[in-house]
């Protein structure tokens, strides 16, 4: 009877998805005629490039400090094997037993923040996992359980990485302040690197505050905005930023790599930091 609510009585055959026996028999996995593969391909290429670059830099354990600039990959520097940075965020919490690159100690946090980020999840699920490769393009996987099971259920801890990302961004802000010194640690100077750091930290904050978890914590969790006018206003601002979460995710990813690369160039002597004053 056409009540529209009969549970699907037909049982699935061997094929699932768009080739399930009850669906319209269309052999093609999709009928899209546009260049649907372009976006995931660019995403995958971009992310891959960053992964390669950041892995090289994180393990290199060199050329990450050129007074007054410290690479954002190595800040704060938490082991004894760090290059001393005057006034800089190098606290020897991990002491001398840590023999690897000190970048690894701290990169976990921004890495975790970005790895569990709602935007990046979309990007790599589509770009790397093809789950789905694009909308209405059948994915190649036989089974799918999404984020219901280990390990992907851990994506739910995104908010704690957000909590961690805030102090990290704070330290990078501190680094940016320190970059208003010259190579002899005298205050009141500025070079091209300072500018690079300023742009980077602005984008890092924009990305951090545009986070969906941030939006939830600031005000999204409330039932009655009208009873919390200040949080409602903040929620509105975060919401506006949140609209550009994808843009800030990419912009800050590129800027942090550029900031690191700038420090690398200066520290390795390949380039001399032009001083403005």
């Amino acid at each position: 009877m056409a009540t529209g609510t009969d549970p699907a009585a037909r049982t699935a055959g061997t094929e699932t998805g768009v080739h399930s026996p009850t669906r319209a028999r269309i052999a093609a996995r999709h009928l899209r005629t546009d260049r649907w593969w372009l976006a995931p391909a660019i995403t995958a290429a971009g992310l891959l490039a960053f992964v390669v670059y950041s892995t090289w830099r994180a393990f290199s354990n060199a050329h990450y400090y050129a007074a007054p600039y410290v690479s954002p990959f190595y800040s704060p520097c938490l082991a004894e094997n760090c290059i001393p940075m005057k006034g800089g965020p190098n606290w020897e919490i991990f002491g001398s037993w840590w023999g690897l690159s000190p970048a690894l100690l701290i990169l976990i946090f921004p890495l975790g923040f970005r790895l569990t980020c709602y935007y990046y999840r979309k990007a790599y699920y589509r770009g790397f996992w093809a789950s789905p490769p694009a909308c209405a393009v059948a994915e190649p996987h036989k089974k799918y359980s999404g984020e219901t099971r280990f390990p992907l259920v851990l994506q739910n801890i995104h908010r704690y990485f957000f909590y961690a990302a805030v102090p990290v961004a704070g330290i990078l802000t501190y680094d940016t302040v320190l970059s208003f010194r010259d190579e002899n640690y005298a205050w009141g100077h500025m070079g091209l690197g300072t500018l690079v750091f300023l742009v980077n930290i602005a984008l890092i904050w924009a990305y951090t505050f545009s986070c969906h978890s941030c939006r939830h914590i600031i005000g999204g969790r409330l039932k009655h905005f009208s009873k919390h006018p200040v949080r409602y206003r903040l929620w509105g601002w975060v919401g506006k930023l949140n609209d550009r979460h994808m843009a800030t995710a990419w912009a800050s990813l590129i800027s942090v790599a550029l900031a690191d690369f700038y420090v690398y160039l200066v520290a390795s002597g390949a380039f001399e930091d032009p001083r403005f004053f």
Partner: protein
Amino acid sequence: MTQLERQEWDVVVVGAGGAGLRAAIEAREQGARTAVICKSLFGKAHTVMAEGGIAASMGNVNSGDNWQVHFRDTMRGGKFLNQWRMAELHAREAPDRVWELETWGALFDRTADGRISQRNFGGHEYPRLAHVGDRTGLELIRTLQQKIVQLQQEDFKQSGDYESRLKVFQECTVTRVLKDGERVAGTFCYERESGRFFVLEAPSVVLATGGIGKSFKVTSNSWEYTGDGHALALLAGAPLLNMEFVQFHPTGMVWPPSVKGILVTESVRGDGGVLRNSDGKRFMFDYVPDVFKEKYAESEEEGDRWYEDPDHNRRPPELLPRDEVARAINSEVKAGRGSPHGGVYLDVSTRMPAETIRRRLPSMYHQFKELADVDITAEAMEVGPTCHYVMGGIAVDSDTAATRGVPGLFAAGEVAGGMHGSNRLGGNSLSDLLVFGRRAGLHASQHAAEHLGVSRPVIDETQIDAAAAEALRPFSAEGSEPGAQEPGRPPENPYTLHQELQQTMNDLVGIIRREGEMEQALEKLAELRVRARRAGVEGHRQFNPGWHLALDLRNMLLVSECIARAALERTESRGGHTREDFPAMDRAWRPVNLLCRPADPTGGLAATDPVRGQIELVTTTTEPIRPDLLALFEKEELVKYLAEEELYE
């Protein structure tokens, strides 16, 4: 033919729009086992298209509002032809019906103090329309749909079956109301998906099928509006009332052709949009009729001030009742002052900032952007009249929504006549659905309760067989009538017949009517009726739109004839009925109601007889308006409407 599935229900509601769902909710809450049957998917009914709001005198925005004022506006809008008791009940009960929606989860736009916000609308003295942006109909239908689901969830908890007491048969069509002697016994239905026939047996049937717009070429109505309920009632022996009153909404889209007729909500004007002709003139100031002279602004400045300060200024004439505005636009276009595509300009772009337009009229903004590629924040819309609503309908008892002469048959919503008189005010439709939907459900369930068990009506097989044969005829349509002169003619294409019908009604029984044209229309309808008997379809019964249309043609032809005959009979102009040959309102016609009933009571319908037709008219007079209701009006106003003898009573 006797192997059809039969199901027993207490109440069958035909139609799942606002009225049908409200009736079903009420019937179920009264304890009746209720079936709802609808042509579309559940939740797609034409009610979703309503944009402006639900008229209810809650007085949230202007505390001066109350039911008496609402009653007065409704009667004025309908030019006093309304069934006054319906208008009274409607005005009294509308606020409760709106408030009740909130308890079912509806989220209306709010006032600053947290109550339901209300907006201005044509013909309403105070801001009165509860609304949600410009998608109020969607909110209404979704709320009712979700209430039905909630009741089904309750039933599921009790019985383990969601559909034990309330079931929606979606994508099914009713082709006949079945009877046991005089009284209703059930409905004959087919499932659109499979073409399978089935019978729902019930002592009460509520018709809530909406309107008739698909008989006209330019219409805001969806394909469902083929006058099914009107025809079902007629065929079951219940008369239709005042079918000549068809509302042409003044502002339908006119371009591009594929969207011609789609509605541009009246809120565009309520919120400040103005009508201009090709000379850039706000022409509505030239079209304020005498009966409304004191109520409307005489200058643009005064009209513009009204939006901010309605207490000290009169409203702009763009907000006159719909019939006046539609006729004015028609005249401007005829006088050669129309827009390139045969409409006039409706402009908000010069009246409000773009941001305000996007916020207050979001779906209009999208509708024009996406359907017509027009940015209404930057340029004027082109609009023209479109067939929108039929004020006439099944004659019902004001209090119980029971039809005349067929016990157990009820009607509510657009399919019922009388509530709106000769012209409906915007916003009064949604409230009508709720008020009379509930009343129909209430009385249908009471009627059913008295006719259960041994007194249940019984349906004999011959009726079912006849209904099945009628429904199957398009598959075996003979190209030519026996003994015809051209043997071997191919069967008629139902799509072609439908287009010809729409063209006929639009051209000959449209906004402005003339005696000769309507006579021509009746001849053309007779011809179409003969040809419709030969309407044939290809393919099989499974989801076959050609077949569905062939069956709907019967209904459209019946209803169209009612409109044409009644319109020819009424020699005056009033509300949604304008005669070029009788341009004035005639007080003598005020108490006159025209009833349509089948000319051939045996049901044979004389379908092939072009002269006699299927419909005969009966002239009746209305009950006098109750004195306390008359006292709500100024004497000077009543003089304009009421006949001498009515005034003295």
